[in-house]
């Protein structure tokens, strides 16, 4: 290991005063440092939140591995420093650097930022500022990194379109070679020709080539100015997940992180089709890794990382067609290593609970389920489909097997919601407690957590208005008063002001970049952290730009309107989404997607 270019920073007394200084050192186990290749074209993968969040996100490990698999190309990481460290960097005039070689972010060829949720948008500007890079694509001449965005927020990248030079829509595994080829071949070319070349890669969206047309409508639409470009940018996705490489040498942090364990992605996509769920649409179709592949990956991961736990990742674990065999084989394989297997994302039915039980290492302390809504009618509207009997049966089984606490997640403000649906939540919970007291030897409590429904682009509910704050307030008040009657309930209501901002940004258009910049300039970074979030700051910023947060979030959109994200497609047709919305209004269920026997013709596979 050569000398660290930031030795002077680590030796500075101020550095010792920052929270968890160890997070900034890099040098974790399994990092890739391509020695002697400091001049090779390079990508820095930036996560717009702090290290312990970013390192917990498996997508980052996947991207890191893919982009480092090419010779003559390197990929490094960077994260947002916690504000105390950001202050130290600013005071010392040290620009944001990569964790691997401490190279300033500004010196990379490409800066890739993943956008996981809307509240991270102002952190894009935080990264750019700390890196010494101008905010807007237009303000960046030659000599700056190409700023590339990706992640689930590509469902509607318009609110941040002006900050990025280009976006990648969908899964990058197969497109990575094409991108790296361009970055290597066209190194030194001007930005315009580079972007033009990139726009020919399927999945790449260059917003400057799709300028905003003059529009008087509140939500503007975009259209391609360039005849040679497709009017709609289609997402990329990998057909065969089983043969898609997976990082078997995951980086092992020294400091503790949120998800401090090895993870194997067992499936991508979800066959269920809950109508509020964006992940359920944008990661279509449902694809699986075979049990054999998962077990092999898990064993290599444990040997390479030394973790004591392996977690099986997917949107809905028990929808994996081989889940029972998989769990059985994996626990057998992991036993000699004394490694625990954990299975998050459990559906609330007895089958799922039985699969979880077969993990002998599952602790009996807590179990989490998401019934989402309080009545069968409401669960049909959102296409969750769970019956009350499913729910009570699962609770009875869980409590009688000795689980002490169960956590239940609900949403408030769902489309067509009535008072009876709110009362339904309380009824489920109070009945659930009775079940617990009757059969549970060690029954402790039911934790109930609720948040406000956020209409998300690319879902059947993308046209739906978010519930008005006054109504949400009343509904929460009602639920709270109904749940107060029992001491076995712990009710947690996540502050819905963040949900209002999420809705406005999720369905926003390109005009919102000014709002985002204003909020950032007013001190609004780290907005997913309670201590930094200020609703008033967002409201003011909208107003000062002559816009209304409320109307972005709370106005219904019509089928005849061109949506701000109308030129971005995740393969699922607009007709399918509209039909699903109509079925919701009729309280009709759509069965899970099974390509061979029960294709829903959503369009993604064709």
């Amino acid at each position, binding site marked *: 290991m050569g000398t660290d270019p930031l030795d002077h920073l680590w030796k500075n007394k101020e550095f*010792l005063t920052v929270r968890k*200084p*160890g997070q900034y050192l890099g*040098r974790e*186990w399994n990092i890739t440092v391509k020695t002697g290749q400091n001049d090779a074209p390079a990508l820095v993968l930036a996560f717009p939140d702090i290290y312990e969040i970013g390192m917990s996100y498996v997508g980052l490990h996947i991207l890191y591995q893919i982009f480092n698999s090419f010779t003559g190309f390197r990929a490094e990481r960077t994260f947002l420093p916690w504000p105390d460290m950001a202050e130290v960097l600013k005071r010392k005039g040290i620009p944001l650097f990569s964790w691997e070689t401490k190279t300033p972010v500004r010196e990379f060829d490409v800066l890739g930022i993943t956008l996981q949720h809307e509240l991270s948008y102002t952190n894009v500007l935080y990264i750019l500022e700390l890196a010494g890079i101008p905010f807007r694509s237009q303000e960046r001449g030659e000599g700056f990194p190409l700023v590339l965005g990706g992640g689930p927020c590509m469902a509607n990248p318009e609110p941040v379109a002006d900050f990025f030079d280009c976006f990648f829509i969908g899964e990058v595994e197969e497109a990575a070679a094409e991108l790296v080829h361009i970055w290597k071949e066209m190194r030194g070319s001007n930005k315009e020709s580079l972007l033009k070349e990139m726009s020919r890669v399927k999945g790449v969206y260059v917003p400057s080539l799709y300028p905003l047309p003059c529009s008087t409508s509140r939500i503007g639409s975009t259209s391609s100015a360039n005849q040679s470009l497709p009017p709609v940018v289609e997402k990329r996705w990998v057909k065969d997940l089983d043969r898609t490489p997976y990082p078997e040498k995951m980086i092992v942090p020294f400091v*503790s992180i949120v998800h401090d364990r090895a993870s194997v992605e067992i499936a991508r996509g979800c066959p269920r089709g809950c109508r509020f769920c964006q992940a359920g649409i944008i990661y279509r179709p449902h694809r699986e890794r075979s049990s054999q592949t998962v077990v092999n990956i898990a064993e290599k991961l*444990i040997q390479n990382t030394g973790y004591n736990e392996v977690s099986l990742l997917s949107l809905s674990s028990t929808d994996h067609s081989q889940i029972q065999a998989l769990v059985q084989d994996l626990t057998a394989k992991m036993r000699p290593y*004394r490694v625990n297997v954990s299975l998050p994302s459990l559906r609330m039915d007895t089958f799922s609970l039985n699969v979880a039980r077969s993990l002998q290492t599952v602790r009996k302390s807590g179990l989490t389920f998401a019934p989402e809504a309080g009545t069968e009618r409401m669960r049909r509207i959102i296409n969750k489909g769970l019956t009350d009997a499913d729910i009570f049966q699962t609770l009875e089984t869980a409590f009688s097997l000795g689980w002490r606490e169960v956590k239940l997640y609900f949403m408030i403000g769902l489309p067509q919601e009535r008072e009876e649906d709110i009362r339904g939540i309380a009824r489920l919970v109070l009945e659930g407690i009775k079940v617990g007291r009757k059969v549970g030897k060690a029954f402790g409590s039911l934790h109930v957590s609720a948040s406000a429904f956020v209409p998300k682009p690319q879902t059947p509910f993308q046209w739906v208005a978010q519930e008005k704050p006054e109504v949400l307030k009343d509904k929460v008040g009602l639920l709270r008063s109904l749940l107060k009657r029992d001491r076995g309930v712990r009710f947690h209501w996540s502050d819905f002001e963040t949900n209002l901002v999420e809705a406005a940004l999720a369905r926003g258009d390109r005009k919102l970049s000014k709002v985002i910049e204003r909020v950032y300039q007013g001190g609004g970074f780290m907005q997913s952290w309670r201590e930094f979030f200020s609703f008033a700051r967002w409201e003011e910023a909208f107003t000062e730009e002559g816009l209304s947060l409320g109307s972005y979030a709370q106005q219904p959109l019509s089928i005849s309107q061109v949506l701000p994200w109308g030129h971005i497609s995740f393969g699922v047709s607009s007709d399918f989404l509209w039909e699903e919305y109509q079925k919701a209004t009729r309280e009709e269920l759509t069965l899970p997607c099974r390509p061979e026997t029960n294709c829903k013709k959503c369009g993604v596979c064709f």
Partner: protein
Amino acid sequence: MEENYRYWLIHQKLFPFHFLSQLDLNRFWERAARRGGLPLAFSQGFNPRPLFSFGPATPVGVESRVEVFELTLTQNWLEEEIKEKLNREGPAELAIQRISRAPSNRKLSRAIRGLRYSFWFSSSLADSSLEEGLSLPAGIEWEKKEFLASSGFVLSFWFKGEKVFSSPIKFVEYLSSILNGLLPEKIIKEEVFLETEGSKS
């Protein structure tokens, strides 16, 4: 119950890894041991943990040449083999320096009788007979004073008995008060006195 084999290991914790906390190190050694394929022994009970036991925590920011921990294996491995396997799974700055079999009748926490810390100052020492006027707290003993070529000096002290659990950072306040507010540039844990070894290590 199967027979277990206990070892005492001494590793260093040098810049910049002195920014890691004791919990970070605990996790690091458990993972390094699993990566190295060591036959770890586990605790009994519902949530078995590998049997590691660590000496008194060195505060974040303090370097060390003598971090001590106990490792328990289910197989009788040669000391050198364990050392080699572990050192392949971590950075040189955290390398194992020495390893020995643990005495059967002694707990690690009871065996650590003394720790020597050095405090590194970058300015020159005005009072050259500093040690004569010192009134040290009970359990802390003067060891030596060295002058550095670069006009700085190093003071070192033994922390003995109960004081092995005392933070050298607290002691800096006392040092600073007798040195007209001077603060050390760095602190290093230099030596450990493990009773079973019979002599200072």
